[in-house]
């Protein structure tokens, strides 16, 4: 479990120069992007699926691997001024979605949280397939 969180955190807080994201070549958009940069592009879409992000907060939501989804939320406590970051890992299993947070117990999602995550994953898939990888999410065919 620790290695998955470590990988997720390195993807979230890597020190690679992200200015290259602003200089995408037009002929082949992802020619020089790393895995982390592709995930960051996906997360830019994923983070917007849950509504507006409060000012001063940072949110990431992305697919880490075929069965793992990562939610990362960073906020500042208004009273203490301290930064608080929470990383949540969601594992998709055949019999449910397991939620795991560092230092917390595992639990299967239920109710509204389960529905919301399911909808978010479907929206993420639709938008990322189209906007990042230029594929029709229903057929897999290249978009014109």
């Amino acid at each position, binding site marked *: 479990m620790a290695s998955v969180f470590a990988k997720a955190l390195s993807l979230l807080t890597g020190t690679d120069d992200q200015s290259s994201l602003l200089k995408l070549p037009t002929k082949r958009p992802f020619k020089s992007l*790393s895995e982390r940069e592709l995930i960051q592009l996906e997360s830019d879409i994923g983070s917007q699926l849950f509504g507006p992000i409060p000012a001063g907060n940072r949110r990431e939501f992305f697919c880490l691997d075929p069965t793992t989804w990562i939610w990362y939320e960073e906020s500042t406590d208004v009273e203490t001024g301290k930064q608080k970051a929470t990383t949540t890992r969601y594992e998709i299993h055949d019999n449910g979605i397991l939620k795991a947070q560092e230092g917390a117990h595992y639990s*299967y999602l239920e109710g509204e949280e389960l529905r919301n995550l399911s909808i978010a*994953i479907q929206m993420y898939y639709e938008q990322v*397939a189209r906007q990042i*990888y230029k594929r029709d999410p229903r057929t897999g*065919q290249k978009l014109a």
Partner: protein
Amino acid sequence: MPELNNEFQLPQERIQATLLEHGTELSFHAASESAAPYEQIRLAREAVALASTAPLEQSSDSLQPEMATEFVLLKQMGANIYTLRQRELDSHLFNEAA
């Protein structure tokens, strides 16, 4: 969808090269497991739609048996995204090596 299947079935050596280049511990979604992934999604979607009117058979292994088909759908979506991403990375290596 012949084009799709061909593109998703990457040679093993290129997959390994991608994994080594990017230092990932993640296992690549095997081509045999991703056969016709979009067809699976289409079928899963139809099953999810049907589930709203005809509840699925109860399973003692499933915590939310009425959502079992939806979990399959979500897994397939994650697998497809992961495959698209890895293929994008793999194409960089292929182009750079050429």
